[in-house]
């Protein structure tokens, strides 16, 4: 299948214009490494505006239109034979949010908030049990004795994991004084927490570094080589 050709503006492909804009904005953000400057501030505010606009547009197309407007006014778009008037209820609840702008009736804005909080709280209970508690408990029930199925090293690692979880939980148990054997366990728990924080930190740094590599790669491969170096070379008959 042939690739779609990007439309042109004044004879320049919109794809090329896009790469130039992306390169300019990338360099504008990187300019902050030198110091705060007008170009960085411009890019920063552009980011705020575009991101907020993106959120509104996505919410409009993913929630407002298919869940509220179409069921009411264009039922055929959502495979309905007749308008679904029940969606007026959340619509009215949503509109009550705006009662915050009228001081006399701003208490009405509690109703939609209460509804959303109720939904989220009710969902949170089975979700926490199903996604956090039980799978994590199950994953901690590990064999800690070497045998036919597991090697000595795996058994030691498993033991470390089980002991680490128990010691970390001991650290977070505040209903008893952390002294004696319990104090030792809670102290060991802190060690495991420190390793976890360190590992998370290392991981985060490397994730940011790979983003940085991605941006540098973009600047070099998509912008500098084809759109700057190559035309200059051609200009000088290279």
């Amino acid at each position: 299948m042939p690739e779609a050709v990007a439309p042109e503006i004044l004879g320049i492909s919109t794809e090329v214009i896009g790469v130039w804009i992306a390169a300019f904005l990338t360099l504008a953000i990187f300019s902050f490494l030198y110091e705060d400057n007008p170009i960085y501030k411009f890019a920063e505010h552009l980011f705020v505006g575009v991101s907020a606009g993106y959120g509104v547009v996505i919410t409009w197309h993913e929630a407002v239109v298919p869940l509220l407007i179409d069921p009411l006014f264009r039922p055929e778009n959502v495979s309905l034979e007749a308008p679904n008037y029940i969606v007026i209820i959340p619509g009215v609840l949503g509109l009550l949010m705006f009662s915050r702008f009228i001081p006399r009736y701003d208490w009405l804005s509690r109703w939609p908030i209460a509804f959303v909080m109720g939904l989220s709280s009710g969902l949170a209970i089975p979700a926490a049990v199903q996604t956090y508690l039980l799978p994590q408990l199950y994953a901690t029930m590990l064999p800690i004795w070497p045998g036919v199925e597991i090697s000595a090293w795996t058994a030691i690692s498993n033991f470390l994991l089980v002991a680490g979880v128990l010691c970390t939980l001991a650290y977070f148990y505040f209903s008893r004084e952390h002294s004696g054997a319990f104090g030792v366990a809670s102290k060991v728990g802190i060690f495991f927490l420190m390793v976890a924080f360190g590992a998370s930190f290392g991981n985060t740094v490397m994730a940011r570094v790979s983003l940085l590599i991605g941006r540098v790669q973009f600047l070099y491969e998509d912008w500098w080589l084809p759109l700057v170096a190559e035309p200059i070379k051609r200009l000088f008959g290279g």
Partner: protein
Amino acid sequence: MKLQVPLLITFLAGVFMAVQFFVPHELGQTAFGELLNWGRIVAAFALVLGIQSLLRTHVEKIRRRRRDWPYSTVAIASFVMMVVIGIGFGSDRGSGFDWVFTHVQVPLDATMFSLLAFFIASAAFRTFRARSTEATLLLVAAVVVMLGRVPGSLIVVFGHSGAGEWLHTNMPDVSEWIMNFPSVAGKRGIIFGVALGSIATALRIMLGIERSHLGGGSGGGGDE
């Protein structure tokens, strides 16, 4: 009316969402899906409040000619532009909205976060000191995990010596082991606490013990 009705709404919505999980009846499942959609609709209206707050801040800055006010016009103009082309002309692939997303938002987002690589590294360099056992463990775990992700750097530092080759070969495994065992042990302890905490907080909200989300309005927080 001002307090009892919202408490009742929270209770009923919460109990239904929690109970339907244990009753896999078709009617319950349909109602569950419908209520989730209702939640998304209400949340969409809440977004308008957030946007109003953002715009009010910037408009106020422009009106009072505060420091850096011209940049606020950039924020407002880009917001309006994105909304007009996104809602007015659609957001499908190949649309103007898609073009702005690909060539403006994505590079800004990725570069903004990649900038953190410098700040997070310099902050670590300034604050990471092996002053105690805990601090040493944190430092060692962070360094091993970082080096494990780029084992080639060890060859650069140690050369093709025995130690360099050994570290180059084994550092990724050591890093993986830290991530899979001691690190998981610490994180799992936190996750258990988070899970139990979420359940307790959810119950408190549903039963009306926790009411802070209902405060704020000048219409009165009394038991009317």
